[in-house]
Structure formats: structure tokens, C-alpha cells
């Protein structure tokens, strides 16, 4: 019998199960809980090799409930309590935890715990990606442009901090909400980026991650106390980007640059959702990096063709963004935009001021920009040299193929490479 499992069922269930179990057992047991949930998935993976259950989701939930009971037994046994305390009422209590609104509530709590100030910023992000979104350390390392080892250590320290500081599985106090939401938004933003510009090979577009970021954002916007101008702007940004997801690759799973994307296929409902969120964001007296980034994304989706793109406006927006939060990546983006405006001198200055190490895992974008610069200046040989550097710097096979194709084109136009 052919049995199809819902896409990303495991990933979505991981965060849910960890949140629910933590709601019940408390944060002190987070490590045990995560191990138990991971173990559940490994068991399912082995069992379902042969036969996928008729209702996979129900199966996982049932296993999660049984896990809860098992864990409770072992925790109670640790405390030398009598097992007879496990009365029938408690299974009803567990069923309550698995109601949809309770799951949402638990997940929101987990988001805020992940962003607790007792955790260092880089630990917060790693912990959130692991615990809420079910990333592996390898995927987190790719998303955060760091080494796997570093992430393992950060996760360890995050869990230690939680236990040492006796953090509770609760929402922040009203006077702490704003500060905490800043970290929350950053985590959502990174989650989305990992999906949108995935550095994991083979699958460029991790739609589930983008969906996950949108979902968390929506979850927060459901509650009035978590709404803000930047939260709406962030949501708008995610909507605009997500509207282009389908056109970023073609049917043979090759990258399609924004220049060549079929703009008629950009998903209108998401663009409209973006516009509406952007309008709401403007009702607040607040400016954030998300406002600028969303405004840039809006310019792209507004343009009817690549040539019609309002690069001047985009340049201004990038410059404001760079003022608000200076970063090497923004600078590189400014160079890329200036390239479209043929401001070659300025482009070359910016590129010279940057170094490969500044861009970390995105170094290939740096060399890619250099290559385009030389291509536009008519220096095919240097363009090819820099494309080669870009190719050497990307681990993503789709990205690699895209750059290789570009290079073949260039080589074709340059006689000296034909022999």
C-alpha cells in the first residue's frame, strides 16, 4: 500500500512534543525531554521503514503521550515516590496538554525561554533553532555561519544556564516583553533565511523553514501583547520573500536568478498579505531593520520586470539599513545595487574595502559580485577567475551549478578559453 507522510511532519512535531513535555515536566528536564523526543523519531524512522502507520501524526502523538508517562515514571522513581501516585486523573491531564491551543501556548513559552537574557545571544538562537524548530547542530551551524563544534558547545551552555538559573517555563514580565521580542524576531528572521538561502546541499529552498518562521511570526501576532511595528514589518518581509519561493528554482531544481524569475508566478496572496502587514506596521511609531528590509523586498515584488526595478530607491533603503545596523553583508548588497546603477567606481571601492573572511559562509556572494563587476566592465578573464573563486567557496550544489553555468556562458563568449 502506498502511504504518503505529511511533508515535514517530523520537524513540526519535534517542536510541539518538546514544548508540551516541557510544559508538563518543567525546564529542568529539558535535556532528558529532547533526548526522549529524538529517540521517538529514530524509533519511528526504523519502524516506518517497513510499514508506515495509517495515521502517522496520531501515531506520533500517541507515542509522545506514552513518552510523557514513561518520563514521569522515571522522574518520580528518581524522587523515590510511590508509583501508585500515578492515578487515572493524570492521563486526562496529559490529554489536555495535547489540545491545539495548549500546544500553541507551550510553543510560545518556549520561544520566550529561548530568548531569555540569561542566555547569550548566540546561545539563544542555537537553542531556539534546536528546540523549537528541530534543527540538527549541522543545520544550525550552516544557518549561523559557524562550526558544528561551536554550536554543540552553545547548546550545552544554554541548557546549563537554564538549569543553573532555574528558569521557569513562563512568559516574560510585561516590562521585559519588548526587549525579549527583539531576540525573538531575530531568531525568526534567521530561521527564515536558513530556508530562503539554504546552505544545505541539494535542496535549495527549505520551504518548511520559511513556513516555520511565518508560522511563529503569525503565532506571536495572534496575541495582542506581542504585536509591534517591527513584528508586522518582519511578517511583511517574510511574506514578500516567501511569495517568490516557487520561482527561485525551475523544474530541474536549478537556481533561477531574480533577473530571470517568472514574475507572473510570484504568489499574489502572500504579496497582498505583505502589503497589509506593512500598512499595519506603519501605524506604529517605530523603525527597525525589518522595516527597511521589507521595503526593499516590496520594491522587488512591485517591479514588473527586472529592468524596471527602482534601484535608486533600493539603494537609499540599503544605505539607511547600513546606518541603522552596519554589516558587511549590507555593504555587499549596496555594491550589488550600485552595479545595477553602473556606479563602477563606487562598487570597486566597496569591494576593495571588504575581505573574504568578512562574509563567512557567504564569501561566494562576495566573489560573485566581483565577477559580475568585471563582466560588466568587459573583463571576461577576470570575471571567470572570480567566478572560479565563488565556486570554490560554496558548499551548496545548486549554487555551485548555477555559478558553473554562468561560467560556461562566459567562457563561450571568450575565445581565449576555447582550445
Amino acid at each position, binding site marked *: 500500500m502506498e502511504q504518503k507522510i505529511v511533508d515535514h511532519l517530523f520537524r513540526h512535531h519535534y517542536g510541539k512534543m518538546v514544548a508540551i513535555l516541557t510544559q508538563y515536566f518543567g525546564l529542568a528536564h529539558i535535556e532528558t525531554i529532547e533526548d526522549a523526543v529524538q529517540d521517538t523519531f529514530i524509533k519511528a524512522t526504523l519502524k516506518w521503514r517497513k510499514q508506515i502507520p495509517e495515521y502517522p501524526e496520531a501515531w506520533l502523538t500517541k507515542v509522545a503521550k506514552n513518552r510523557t508517562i514513561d518520563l514521569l515514571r522515571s522522574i518520580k522513581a528518581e524522587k523515590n515516590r510511590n508509583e501508585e501516585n500515578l492515578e487515572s486523573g493524570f492521563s486526562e491531564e496529559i490529554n489536555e496538554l495535547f489540545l491545539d491551543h495548549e500546544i500553541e501556548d507551550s510553543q510560545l513559552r518556549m520561544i520566550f525561554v529561548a530568548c531569555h537574557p540569561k542566555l547569550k545571544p548566540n546561545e539563544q538562537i542555537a537553542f531556539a533553532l534546536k528546540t523549537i524548530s528541530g534543527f*540538527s547542530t*549541522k543545520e544550525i551551524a550552516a544557518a549561523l555561519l559557524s562550526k558544528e563544534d561551536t554550536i554543540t558547545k552553545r547548546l550545552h551552555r544554554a541548557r546549563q544556564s537554564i538549569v543553573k538559573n532555574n528558569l521557569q517555563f513562563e512568559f516574560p514580565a510585561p516590562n521585559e516583553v519588548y526587549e525579549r521580542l527583539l531576540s525573538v524576531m531575530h531568531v525568526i528572521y534567521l530561521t527564515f533565511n536558513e530556508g530562503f538561502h539554504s546552505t544545505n546541499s541539494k535542496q535549495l529552498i527549505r520551504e518548511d523553514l520559511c513556513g516555520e518562521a511565518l508560522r511563529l511570526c503569525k503565532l506571536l501576532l495572534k496575541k495582542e501583547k506581542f504585536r509591534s511595528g517591527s513584528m508586522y514589518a518582519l511578517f511583511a518581509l517574510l511574506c514578500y520573500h516567501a511569495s517568490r519561493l516557487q520561482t527561485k528554482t525551475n523544474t530541474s531544481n536549478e537556481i533561477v536568478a531574480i533577473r530571470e524569475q517568472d514574475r507572473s508566478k510570484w504568489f499574489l496572496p502572500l504579496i497582498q498579505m505583505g502589503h497589509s502587514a506593512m500598512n499595519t506596521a506603519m501605524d506604529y511609531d517605530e523603525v527597525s531593520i525589518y522595516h527597511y528590509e521589507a521595503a526593499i523586498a516590496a520594491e522587488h515584488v512591485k517591479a514588473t520586470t527586472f529592468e524596471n526595478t527602482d534601484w535608486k530607491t533600493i539603494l537609499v533603503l540599503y544605505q539607511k539599513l547600513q546606518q541603522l545596523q552596519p554589516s558587511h553583508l549590507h555593504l555587499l548588497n549596496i555594491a550589488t545595487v550600485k552595479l545595477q546603477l553602473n556606479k563602477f567606481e563606487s562598487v570597486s571601492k566597496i569591494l576593495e574595502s571588504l575581505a573574504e573572511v568578512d562574509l563567512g559562509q557567504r564569501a561566494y556572494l562576495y566573489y560573485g559580485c566581483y565577477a559580475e563587476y568585471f563582466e560588466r566592465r568587459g573583463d571576461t578573464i577576470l570575471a571567470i577567475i572570480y567566478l572560479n573563486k565563488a565556486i570554490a567557496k560554496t558548499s551548496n550544489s545548486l549554487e555551485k551549478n548555477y555559478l558553473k553555468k554562468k561560467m560556461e556562458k562566459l567562457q563561450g563568449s571568450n575565445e581565449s578559453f576555447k582550445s
Partner: protein
Amino acid sequence: MKDFMMIFIGADYQELGLSPEELQNRMGKWFAWGQKMETQGILKGGEALTPNIKRVIGQDRAVSDGPFADSKEIIGGYYTVSAESAEAVVEIAQDYPDYDLGGTVEIREIMVFDN
């Protein structure tokens, strides 16, 4: 037709710390492979093994528990299939999903005794 065992060595998911997403993807591949063999009527059986190992060794029957030195040598499971030859099983083993994780498939013919 002869019977063969495909023994899967290494690529322990627990050890490798795969994410739920990766687990689901890999499971999908295993499932598809199993289905394919079943449709072809060559799959006779198989099991997955837990990585908990006990070894009884030597004349004094010393018992030792894992984990043992190299997880790359741990058997994770097996399938038994029927095929014309070992070469045909090599062909079948092309679809084993975990080569990229350092996994190995060992193919052994099941011995037949004449009565």
C-alpha cells in the same frame, strides 16, 4: 534463485545526531526501497537492530557491554533477499540510502545444505 543477506554497517542515526527532518527524508528513502523490493518480490525479510550491544568473549565467557570502539563497524540491520547472483544483489544495494553517511552494505550468500 539464491538467498542473500544485505547487512547494513555503520551510519547510526543516533550517533550522527540527524535532525527530525533528515530522519523523515531518510525514512522515506528506506520505505521506497523496501516497497520497490517488495513489488519485485525479492524481499524476504529483515530487521533493524538497536545499537545496544553485549558481547560474550573467550573461554571464561567474559561479558562486555558497549559502546565499542568504532560505531562505523556496528551492524544496524539487515534484509534478506532472493536473487540470481551476488552481482544482482549489488545492483539492488545501489538504492541503500545511507552511503553518504559512511554506511556500508555487506552482501553475503546464505549457505544451503544438501539433504
